[in-house]
């Protein structure tokens, strides 16, 4: 079986079978990362260009390590060094890079739909590494991989996502993926951070966090963009953490073995209290480890043929 699309622009385009294929492939990729020599020749001679039009450390590094463990040549272009500052359009930048015959483009952009613009214009496969508030498919896949690793299966599980759903590409991709795989998704947060008609995304909105955590198998806390939204969509960190932050008092209403996830970087003491981050069932660092494996799998599936 192979992926039916040239690109990975979002979870929306994937079938449940394709998601399973990616996750199954990632299992063997994870094994590579556990070896003493963490490199296989699979993508030797392939060129991967990652274009980050938005600052990111962990996602960019994760893609870079993934490419290198598969022996690909990985070139990073960041917004400040790219021709975007010289006034070139995104499409023209893409055509110029295309002229150098890359095998895969990885694109992060502040505008929803930007990776699709490139994917439509170029024959090279494109992986969306996050576009605006639209999708972040590799994050959702690594989250799914991490849950599957702990709970065997996604079907029938109950996943709670807490925070700024409105502006979160992580939440959008996760909701799509979890629904496709048969998990039930609940969301919680102030209404200022909920998309209109949030139920139509296939989730249940629960306003109160202590109610929302009840019987959840997994709690995903989203990062609060405090620099951008304080005062506007929530009064301040203190009130946010009191009503929508995860702490031990809230967890008393949850299952004892609930898994706690966060896409990072964490605002300690805001969305998650420090004592919760160190709990054994907090699998935030597993997510980071698995990100490399999932991205290796995608690189292989999109270019390896």
């Amino acid at each position: 079986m192979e992926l039916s699309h040239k690109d990975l622009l979002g979870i929306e385009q994937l079938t449940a079978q394709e998601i399973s294929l990616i996750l199954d492939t990632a299992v063997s990729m994870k094994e590579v990362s556990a070896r003493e020599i963490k490199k296989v020749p699979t993508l030797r001679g392939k060129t991967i260009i990652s274009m980050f039009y938005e600052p990111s450390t962990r996602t960019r590094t994760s893609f870079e390590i993934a490419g290198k463990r598969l022996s690909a040549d990985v070139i990073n272009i960041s917004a400040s060094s790219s021709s975007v500052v010289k006034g070139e359009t995104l499409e023209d930048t893409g055509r110029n890079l295309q002229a150098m015959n890359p095998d895969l483009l990885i694109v992060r952009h502040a505008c929803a739909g930007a990776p699709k613009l490139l994917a439509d214009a170029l024959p090279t496969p494109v992986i969306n590494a996050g576009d605006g508030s639209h999708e972040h498919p590799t994050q959702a896949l690594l989250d799914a991989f991490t849950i599957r690793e702990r709970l065997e299966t996604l079907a029938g599980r109950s996943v709670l996502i807490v925070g700024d759903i409105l502006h979160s590409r992580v939440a959008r991709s996760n909701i799509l993926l979890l629904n496709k795989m048969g998990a039930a998704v609940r969301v919680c947060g102030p209404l200022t951070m909920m998309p209109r008609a949030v139920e139509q995304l296939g989730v249940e909105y629960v306003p109160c966090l202590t109610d929302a955590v009840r019987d959840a198998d997994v709690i995903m806390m989203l990062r609060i963009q405090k620099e951008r939204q304080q005062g506007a969509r929530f009064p301040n960190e203190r009130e946010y953490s009191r009503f929508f932050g995860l702490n031990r008092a809230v967890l008393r209403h949850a299952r004892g073995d609930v898994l706690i996830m966060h896409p990072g970087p964490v605002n300690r003491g805001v969305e998650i209290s420090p004592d919760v981050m160190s709990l054994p069932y907090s699998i935030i660092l597993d997510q980071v480890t698995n990100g490399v494996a999932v991205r290796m799998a995608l690189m292989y599936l999109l270019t390896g043929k």
Partner: protein
Amino acid sequence: MALLIRTARALDPSEGLDEILNILVEGGRITALGRDIEAPAGGDCDVIDAAGLIAAPGLIDMHTHLREPGQEYKETIASGARAAAAGGFTAVACMANTYPANDNASTTRYILERAREACVRVLPVAALTVGLKGTALTEMGDLKEAGAVALSDDGCSIADAQVMRLALEYARSFEMPVLCHCEDSSLSFGGVMHEGAVSAVLGLRPIAPAAEELIVQRDIALAEWVGHCVHIQHVSTAGSVRIIREAKARGVRVTAETAPHYFTLTDEAVRGFDTNTKMNPPLRSASDVAAIRQGLADGTIDVIASDHAPHSSLEKDVEFDHAAFGIVGLETMLPLTLALVSEGVLTLAQAVEKFTCNPAAVLGYGRARLKAGSVADITIIDPDMLWTLERGRLYSLSCNTPFFGRTFTGRAVYTIVGGTVVHALRA
């Protein structure tokens, strides 16, 4: 001690009650109502002979300014509560434009602490935005936990529509009612009276009715979009009444209040440059007054609230342009409303609803009722008493009212809070 209210016309529209009954109060609660209820044998029992009087559930004034903390020379929570009791009110909601503003849980707790010495119940309304500045949201969850019953930037309108939208959404997250002072200040800026024939004569800077109506329309549209309820404060124009009536017909969750001066006085009252005719929104035209009365009669306007706004001579004994907006109203609201009953605009039951179940529903306040088991907050009204408002006779610390010298019919003669008589005119 027990209290027996004898042969009162017991009137509680929400309970469908309107009959001559005895009401027995023990331990702060109503323990029995009935024709044959008598004082318990042997025990101490005060008796109020209420023949010819009306007993209603304790009246609520959902719009007052008690000025504490910060402007205690105008009013304190204790003095405002005494004025409320004298006016027949057992509970008052107080707005957030104090100094400091009630925009944080500490101030809410301070108000409630001070209210423990007050003779009526005090329901703090907290600010929607920090400092009522219309930019940053307050800690609404924290404020609710501290005891705030609702949210309002009364005195100011939030100018930025996106801030208002987010405030409504955030308030909805915590199921907090939002009360809206509707004024487009870019239009009303500098104005001191209604824009009409009288302002044309007096040369005072005008406030167009549209300044109110634009924001009534906006806030209803925002409430409809985000799915929260809004309550429009001090409706003063015919246009606002029409907008609210249409919204209600459409099923929008909007409620509204007006103040007695908006159905009693017109902008003609401003002709003498009496600063006690300066309020915000301003006294409007005769056709606006007629529309307010129609809105009260047909239920478009749910609540009558005083907008009790005490100011001292420092703010009022000055040029009309420089005077502060607002008048005291707690002690004149009930008779001015009873005048609507005698004029046939409202039934007595409608008038009582606008002070009891309607404001309680807006605030989500578990109010008293006239039934066994209820907290004994009771207002006893003499509907026929003729009296004249004289200078020096107000309980409020301030005396900024245009109604001195006016003769009223009807008055609260007993105000009972938790079974205790806190105001008695006849005792």
